[in-house]
């Protein structure tokens, strides 16, 4: 936060009045504000960064639990093995495809829902609560629900609905579409979209409600239609929120494990990076290679997170300037 904000310059005269040199007084004041936060910061570093350093160290080690006598420094072997592994390469592609699809689709749906919820209507509170619910369900439970209660071709909701409709017309042989087998990745994506749409909706709704209403009213007085208001006022205002939602969503969806694990057990080409790491760790008991794969996931996530943080900080800059 190097840009001097209005609020900060307003406080400077007070420091001068107390007789202390402005610069050191400001520094002391800054530290007084920071000090209480230090324990939290150090705690954060201990619980998040130290394990990562541990993972980094292990990723350069030969360490398989099934072979406890052969633990030692392995150099880049784990990384070369990881990148040579066709399963991991396809997992990277799957992860990208999964993340991009889920984020984009839930963003569009979330935007639509947010625009609808931005209007006043009877029962708005109830509708909003119901729409948020999917996001509050435990991910593994929602994945199980999708696998057995919805997709299952023998006793799932899709099958039951079709049977019921066909029965209405007197047919005993309804089609039995097996969505999970026919469209494995799309089925996983659909369950994730259901889960993440509310998240997108919430962020965009917050953005919509921070919109200055007088500007919209002025535009309406000037004869702007609904589409024009959306196109020239709402959308530009929402752009930052859209970016934020997309980037935060990406960070979360890249790490998603529950849906793939539960719905398809990583089969039918749906294994994403977290699943690949899990398999190396739990089936192969190869801690070295699993750590190397974990580091690769972190590096990819960091790339996304960097963009996310930039967006967020530019958002805050705008807030403080306005």
């Amino acid at each position: 936060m190097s840009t001097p904000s209005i609020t900060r310059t307003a406080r400077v005269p007070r420091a001068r009045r107390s007789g202390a040199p402005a610069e050191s007084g400001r520094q002391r004041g800054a530290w007084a504000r920071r000090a209480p936060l230090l324990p939290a910061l150090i705690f954060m570093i201990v619980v998040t960064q130290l394990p990562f350093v541990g993972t980094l160290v292990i990723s350069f080690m030969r360490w398989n639990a099934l072979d406890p006598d052969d633990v030692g420094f392995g150099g880049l072997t784990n990384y070369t093995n990881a990148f040579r592994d066709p399963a991991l390469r396809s997992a990277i592609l799957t992860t990208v495809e999964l993340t991009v699809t889920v984020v984009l689709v839930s963003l569009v749906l979330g935007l639509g829902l947010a625009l609808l919820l931005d209007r006043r209507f009877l029962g708005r509170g109830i509708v909003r609560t119901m729409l948020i619910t999917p996001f509050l369900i435990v991910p593994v439970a929602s994945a199980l629900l999708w696998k057995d209660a919805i997709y299952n071709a023998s006793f799932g909701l899709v099958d039951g609905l079709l049977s019921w409709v066909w029965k209405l017309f007197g047919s005993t042989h309804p089609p039995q579409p097996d969505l999970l087998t026919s469209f494995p990745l799309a089925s996983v994506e659909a369950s994730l979209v259901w889960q993440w749409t509310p998240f997108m909706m919430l962020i965009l709704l917050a953005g919509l409600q921070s919109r200055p209403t007088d500007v919209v009213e002025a535009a309406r007085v000037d004869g702007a239609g609904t589409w024009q208001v959306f196109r020239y006022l709402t959308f530009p205002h929402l752009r930052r929120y859209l970016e934020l939602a997309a980037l935060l969503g990406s960070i979360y969806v890249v790490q998603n494990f529950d849906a793939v694990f539960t719905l398809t057990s990583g089969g039918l080409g749906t294994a994403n990076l977290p699943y690949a790491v899990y398999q190396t760790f739990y089936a192969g008991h190869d801690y070295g290679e699993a750590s190397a794969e974990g580091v690769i996931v972190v590096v990819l996530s960091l790339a996304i997170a960097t963009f996310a943080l930039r967006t967020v900080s530019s958002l805050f800059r705008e807030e403080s300037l306005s």
Partner: protein
Amino acid sequence: MPPSNSLLRRTAPIGAVVLCGALLAACSGAGGSAGTASGSSDSINVLMVNNQQMLDLQKLTAQYFTKSTGIKVNFTVLPEDDVRDKVTQDFSSQAGQYDVATISNYETPFFAKDGWLSPLSSDARSDTAFDQSDILPNIQQSLTYKGQIYAEPFYGESSFLMYRKDVFAAKHLTMPAHPTWQQVAALAAEADGAQSGMKGICLRGQPGWGEVIAPLTTVVNTMGGTWFNDNWQAQLTSPAFEQATEFYVDLVRAHGEAGAAQDGFTECLNDMEQSKVAMWYDATSAAGSLEGKGSPVAGKIGYVPAPVDQTKSSGWLYTWAWGIQKASKHQTDAWKFVSWASSKQYEDLVGTTLGWASVPAGKRASTYSDPGYLSAASAFAGPTLTALNAANPQDPGVQPRPAPGIQFVGIPEFEDLGTQVSQLISDAIAGQISVGTALKNSQALAAKVGARYAGH
């Protein structure tokens, strides 16, 4: 600015540093205390899988074991994959954090070979109340390495074929007393569509070395195939292995349940209970649920041995058992716990307190003559015992094997190998790739594993 404020400002960093120090100490303390729990004299640490039978045991331990022996038992309960990993971690490093852990007949031989387990033969011999001779011979054999017992079974299972007697009667179909796979395939075709929405047979297709690989490997065995020959050469592209896999995949695609590629034990159980399939080839432990309270198909199911082709029997063998870590400092207390949990008395205790359907069965001959147990399990007790007695992990196929195991190969690498192969098989069941392609890729994976052993 009031002076107290500046004082606060000066002391705050010091406070912060002290607080951080305290936090760090707390963290390291938390990490370090895990090991000391096993240090107290009369308590043992038990790591076990979160299956219902183990959860029942957890409930009964304090009142019926700790009270009479004074030994406190600290349980750690985890899902199967996590348990396997934690056990492997703790036992391989001989860290001694857990005195007792649930291991299966898959791990026991190679854990014993690596010297991670305490031999239990002499304990079992001197403990006459435990009655080792009552343990089913095949189960005991599967937990034995070089003549020494290394684990005591908690419950055991084999596999058999379950079918709807009422559906077969209505369609005038007869299930042979000892069916072959060809007969089962023909019956599946006949029974397909016997009721609206009913398929011929349920077979697992979900990826996982403990899911689709288990039933498939029993089919491979009986059709003359094997994962490895005696010289550790991978045999996944051999004609017998290929024919068996083709048979399994074709059967499940033609007359199996819809959505088979993601169906494991749980989904098939649902299919069977909801009359979506006429037959189901799976674990003997499924019968307890099918005949249990509230099951819509209770009393309608017949049980016959696992279908065969070239061998006499083909049912698998699996048992969750108690292993004692060699590095444990509480060997005597650990044995007391193991002998109690695996005892005849414990089975009776479960029967009288929780109901006979919850008994951890499939390990003792006496269970199958117990009137209490038979009152709840008469429909499937006989077929289960027959299946358990017919399963021979040392010689499950038509050729000698380099490692024991019926539905798995008893080597540590099989978890990873089986899981990777299972995904290819599942792809074939989904129709994404051909069986030939799946097996060609699987062969390459298996050959890599075989090469590690071939030189030994």
